[in-house]
């Protein structure tokens, strides 16, 4: 174990190596590490923010969807009401039309019947006279018995 000039040589090498390491090795490496750590921290913070934003957006979308559903329901409701009203109106109109047609039909039938009755009445009178004539074998004077015939006609 002899101490000699090797110690001085090693001391010089030690000093030079430490200075070199301090100037050219340590700063770039630790700088890169710290820059990367900062980048990763930023990325994590950004992802946190994005997750929060997403949550907010989802909440907003849900609210909007709910609103839209309510609106759609109200629109459908109004449409149904409107439809019912239209149907009701149409039914009313149709009913009125039907009644009108029926009424006119009834009136026509009535006049027709009256006319037929009148015709029939006259024909019955003629037929009755003809029949009576045949029965009485021309012994009856049509003029003398016209009051009886008139009475008969009136009874018909």
């Amino acid at each position, binding site marked *: 174990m002899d101490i*000699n000039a090797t110690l001085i040589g090693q001391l010089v090498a030690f000093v030079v190596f430490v200075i070199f390491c301090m100037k050219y*090795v340590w700063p770039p490496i630790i700088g890169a590490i710290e820059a990367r750590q900062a980048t990763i921290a930023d990325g994590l913070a950004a992802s946190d923010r994005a997750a929060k934003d997403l949550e907010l957006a989802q909440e907003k979308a849900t609210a909007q969807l709910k609103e839209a559903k309510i609106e759609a329901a109200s629109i459908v409701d109004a449409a149904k009401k409107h439809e019912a009203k239209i149907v009701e109106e149409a039914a009313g109109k149709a009913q009125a039309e039907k009644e009108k047609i029926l009424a006119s039909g009834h009136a026509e039938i009535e006049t027709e019947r009256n006319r037929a009755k009148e015709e029939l009445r006259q024909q019955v009178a003629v037929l009755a006279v003809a029949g009576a004539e045949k029965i009485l074998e021309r012994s009856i004077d049509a003029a003398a018995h016209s009051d009886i015939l008139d009475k008969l006609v009136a009874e018909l």
Partner: protein
Amino acid sequence: MSASAELTSQEYIRHHLSNLTVGEGFWTVHVDTLGWAVFLGFIFLLTFRSVAKKATTGVPGKLQCAVEMIVEFVDDSVKSTFHGKNPLIAPLALTIFVWVLLMNAMDWVPVDLLPHLIHWVTGIELSHIYMKPVPTTDPNITFAMAFGVFFLVIYYSIKVKGLGGFIKELTTQPFGHWSLYPVNFILETVTMLARPLSLALRLFGNLYAGELIFLLIATIGLFQLPVHFLWAAFHLLVIPLQAFIFMMLTIVYLSLAHEDH
């Protein structure tokens, strides 16, 4: 080992524990340990520098991931102990950790591999080849690093607390009475000096002992293979642990230098 056939175990171990030297007396330089230390330091710096140059803040490559793991580990260790602001401590801790780790890891290189390689390449007689490839088994290397840390501790103590504050810290505790200030000074100085000494000797002692056991195992013949494996596996713990302890104590000493009591 083929070399040990002609040598006794004692000679074999002594040969392996001798450095390749240049120079005389104090001006001797251990070319092998210092050379390996500088070489490993360059490997560390060049690898990390190449990553630093291409460092991307986006998706990192595999090498960048590995380097960043080490850098973050060191950064966490520094931040958990040292709370002030000092641009030197973290790079210093990184240099110490990786460099000491690499120097310790040379312990895994089989003890006869490098001498035999040199013999095979250059043809020099094995008995003339001295090659100690684990720098941290050389006290010169560990003491140099510990002294470097020690100088920084004194420099920052004076810079942060002022010369007066530093002297006050050395003299006014643990005993508060003025008559005991000389005793305090002796106690605190011993504590102060014990730090680099223990720092250097702990690393040196652990690795030197490990290397010595490897050499002892190498002398027992064929059965050395499983034993070598076990001892190398055990060093999976020793090597990173000693590097970590050296780094951690450096951080602790420097953070103490920044704190007022």
